[in-house]
């Protein structure tokens, strides 16, 4: 498996309501371990995954949001967030746990086109 493919993980769901956000991180880390080209896209409620200040004690569930900060250590550095999704939720880059690249909808669509494998969460 010497070939490198472009993997994009499209995150469109809020954290905690469903398990997808957590599982997406798992696959991202493993894909990085396979030395693939990894991008993460956050659209719709997926942008909420990156919100600072998550406190899960009251729902007795593990807070996995610190993992986003750890991605850099695994050389996962391409995080893209859709501008329109942020705005519709009253969020700005200052609300987010990590540095991201903010893209307009059509730019995000163009980036998706360039991928080899798109996994949706």
């Amino acid at each position: 498996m010497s070939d490198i493919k472009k993997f994009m993980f499209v995150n469109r769901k809020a954290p905690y309501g469903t398990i997808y956000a957590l599982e997406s991180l798992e696959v991202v880390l493993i894909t990085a371990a396979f030395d693939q080209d990894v991008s993460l896209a956050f659209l719709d409620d997926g942008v909420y995954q990156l919100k600072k200040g998550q406190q899960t004690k009251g729902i007795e569930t593990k807070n996995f949001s610190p993992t986003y900060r750890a991605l850099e250590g695994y050389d996962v550095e391409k995080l893209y967030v859709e501008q329109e999704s942020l705005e519709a939720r009253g969020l700005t880059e200052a609300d987010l746990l990590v540095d991201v690249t903010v893209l307009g909808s059509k730019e995000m669509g163009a980036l998706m086109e360039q991928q080899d494998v798109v996994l949706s969460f």
Partner: protein
Amino acid sequence: MKFGIVVNEGPYQHQASDSAYLFCKAAIERGHEVWRVFFYHDGVNNATRLTEPPQDDRHIVNRWGKLAEEHKIDLVVCVAAALRRGIRDENLAQGFRISGLGQLVEAGIQTDRLVVFGD
């Protein structure tokens, strides 16, 4: 007051089972009775004794069983939904029993409030 609870989704995938559990705990703390929890649709997957979550995660199946034992809650798994999804007596967790949809209707009749948790 006497509560009935319905759980429509399996553990971990959706928050439904977590929310239902925390609701039951709070109801008991308030002095109410949780008369029956009915596990329906994918909710039957809350009742498998083979579950083994990561060490640092909550054990959703066992904590239902424990709560039921401590507070005499009737945990009923819908038989038709369970057969479709491979939940049977041989893999049923302690504290649960398998029975028919009539048990859900009965919960609607016998309790003061029926609260549904699902997706």
